[in-house]
């Protein structure tokens, strides 16, 4: 049978960001897939040698808008480790609050996009309507909806007063009820299951061997989440990774759905443990040496390698984002799929291309 090469992307209705896949198909079956990047490469790592280490916070926040807070958290933790300082307890708990709010709105955004990818428009709109409540919390507590810019070296720059804490808790009650009302639709609806169950299966062994990260890894049955490293305030919170075993699009979707509810629980736990205290410690000296630091972003494990030389400029900032890790597994599971399933499977990794290319 003759083979045909079909271009998928960089502009495609299901892709929020540009990535190109050259799909080789025989009839309706994909037999090869070659990803091409480069549409949003900005060279942000290189800016580390041109900007001082404090300015780099604003730069790493712009690696990715949707998980900007967690990028700066990872970076600040790395610099703090290098300089031998630790953020105060209140700051570490506040970091948990905002990072879990980021995970929550990222997962709601993705769940909506995923519903849209198989034509479930009303579910998409419902999920994004719920997400707006979280964006309101971000805006009210930090001044910004997306790039909240709360992290500084040594702590955070924003605080929550009692009235704000009560309002966040009240909002989360409503958000949780709204999310739970969609649970049976997201997990059991016949339309959803038909387009997601048994599609794009990544086995547990393959996920591990291919270096998958985040819900892509946990949806295949590997219980690994960087929050188990107990960074920020996670050492004081009850946390277990959410795991599904089917390894298909449904499993990845279900992991994100359950993690949304888990994030609400973690925000509540962190708010309950907030005690009066400083927001930041004073920073003295310049970063020197090298560290590796890891955090869990909505899309999975994010690794920063930082190298300082005792000056204002770092010698190297290396960022490995989760989508970068999930592209090889994606390229591995596409062959064998029906062409019509490709958009759903591509979206199931929650691709963040601005993160990937930096």
């Amino acid at each position, binding site marked *: 049978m003759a083979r045909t090469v079909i271009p998928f992307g960089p502009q495609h209705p299901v892709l929020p960001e540009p990535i190109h896949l050259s799909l080789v198909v025989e009839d309706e079956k994909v037999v090869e897939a070659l990803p091409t990047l480069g549409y949003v490469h900005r060279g942000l790592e*290189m800016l580390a040698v041109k900007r001082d280490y404090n300015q780099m916070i604003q730069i790493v926040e712009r690696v990715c808008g949707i998980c900007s807070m967690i990028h700066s958290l990872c970076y600040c933790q790395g610099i703090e480790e290098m300089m031998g300082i630790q953020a105060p307890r209140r700051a570490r708990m506040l970091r948990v609050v905002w990072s879990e709010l980021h995970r929550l709105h990222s997962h709601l955004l993705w769940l909506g996009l995923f519903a849209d990818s198989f034509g479930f428009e009303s579910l998409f709109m419902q999920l994004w309507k719920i997400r707006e409540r979280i964006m309101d919390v971000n805006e009210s507590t930090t001044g910004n909806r997306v790039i909240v810019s709360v992290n500084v070296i040594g702590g955070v720059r924003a605080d929550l007063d009692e009235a704000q804490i009560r309002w966040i808790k009240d909002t989360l009650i409503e958000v949780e009820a709204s999310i739970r009302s969609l649970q049976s639709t997201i997990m059991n609806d016949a339309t959803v299951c038909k387009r997601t169950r048994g599609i794009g299966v990544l086995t547990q062994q393959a996920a591990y061997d291919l*270096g998958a990260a985040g819900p892509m890894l946990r949806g295949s049955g590997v219980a690994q989440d960087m929050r188990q490293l107990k960074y920020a305030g996670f050492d004081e919170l009850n946390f277990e990774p959410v795991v599904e075993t089917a390894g298909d699009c449904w499993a990845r979707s279900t992991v994100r759905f359950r993690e949304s509810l888990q994030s609400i629980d973690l925000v509540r736990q962190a708010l309950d443990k907030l005690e009066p205290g400083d927001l930041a410690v004073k920073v003295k000296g310049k970063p020197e040496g*090298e560290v590796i630091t890891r955090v869990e972003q909505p899309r999975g*494990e994010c*690794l920063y*390698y930082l*190298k300082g030389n005792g000056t204002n400029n770092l010698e*190297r900032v*290396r960022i490995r984002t989760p989508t970068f*890790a999930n592209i090889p597994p994606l390229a591995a599971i596409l062959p064998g799929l029906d062409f019509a399933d490709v958009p759903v499977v591509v979206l199931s990794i929650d691709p963040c291309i601005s993160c990937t290319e930096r």
Partner: protein
Amino acid sequence: MTINATTIAPAQLLAEATRLKNEGFRFVTMSSVELDQTNMEILYHFDRDLVLTNLRVPVEKGGKLPSLSGLLFGAFLVENEIRDQFAITFDGLVLDYQGKLYSETAQTAASSPFCKYHVKAEPSPAPDSQTSNQEGK
């Protein structure tokens, strides 16, 4: 402060990566680090049970290393990126973008903002060859 990393020679890399894979380590990524005008090192990061094990492999700029992509398919993307940005080539790369992972020709790459490209374009008969020998930095 320094990270815990074992320094090995390039010739030992494949054997060491095979050993780590067989012992249940997951390949995380690689980091390229410039040391001076002529020397670099590549850090290979592996994880098992949330603990990182790192290999440090020294290499000259423009040098060559064995590719891990045949053993660990997930390495192909980062190896192509390192080739794009630091001109290190990898022997046995299973998906080789020939230095164009980010879709740029050497000519346009040389003028990209903020990119640390060290690849000099091949002499070209094209009319814009005057700009093709710029070294982007």
